[in-house]
């Protein structure tokens, strides 16, 4: 699992690469949660993630709650078709802003 973080114009971009299963989800959670501060704008680029299990869903849920608690804004970009499917049947997709590309995600975060 590779996790790259960069900040640009008040937006934190986290790029993930690799499968997110029960052995790697904790790394994602531990790396990303501390990035969320008051009013954070966070873009999670998942273009490099071909697979995510329910352990990843739980990590995303923790992130969602953290962002909501801090009045931040979160967008997911680059979800594979299969991951979007998993998020859809579990009802997760309705609660996340998701965009196709990083550029679209940045635009979404800059709007608000």
């Amino acid at each position, binding site marked *: 699992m590779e996790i790259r973080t960069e900040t640009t114009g008040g937006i934190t971009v986290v790029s993930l690469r690799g499968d997110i299963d029960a052995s790697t989800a904790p790394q994602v959670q531990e790396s990303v949660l501390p990035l969320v501060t008051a009013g954070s704008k966070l873009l999670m680029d998942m273009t490099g993630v071909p*697979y995510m299990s*329910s352990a990843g*869903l739980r990590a995303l849920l923790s992130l969602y709650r953290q962002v909501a608690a801090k009045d931040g804004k979160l967008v997911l970009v680059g979800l594979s078709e299969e991951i979007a499917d998993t998020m859809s049947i*579990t009802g997760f997709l309705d*609660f996340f802003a998701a965009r196709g590309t990083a550029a679209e995600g940045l635009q979404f975060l800059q709007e608000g």
Partner: protein
Amino acid sequence: MDAKLFPGTLESLAGIADYVLAAAAHSGLDKRATYRLRLAVDEVATNIVAHGYVEAGLSGHIQVVATTHSDRLQVILEDTAIPYNPLTQATPDNLDTPIAERPLGGLGVFLTIQGCDRFAYEYHDGHNRNIFEMNLPTPTEPTP
């Protein structure tokens, strides 16, 4: 494919996934069904490690074996952890509840049952056996 034995730890999940992906490719399962099978096996293997072995203070192995039949691919996980029947875990009935408000148990089992064409659980002589089956798109020759 020949059965393969993995230590009952989370570090084995990647190897189990590789085995399932190889079996799916060999059987001609399509991309979407392959993903669903891999997810189902991964979710159950995670539960075996986390609940069957670690939480129970036990250690052991998970054996994986895949068999291609004429009409379906079957994958069986077998372990000696505490008896655990995923089918007794209630399917979450809160999928419409905002995720900020819902507890998150049972998602893995839900994805397993949703994703497989057939799923079965057997307990026999101290062994849990989880059986996953995916229909194959077109008949193929059975492998021994």
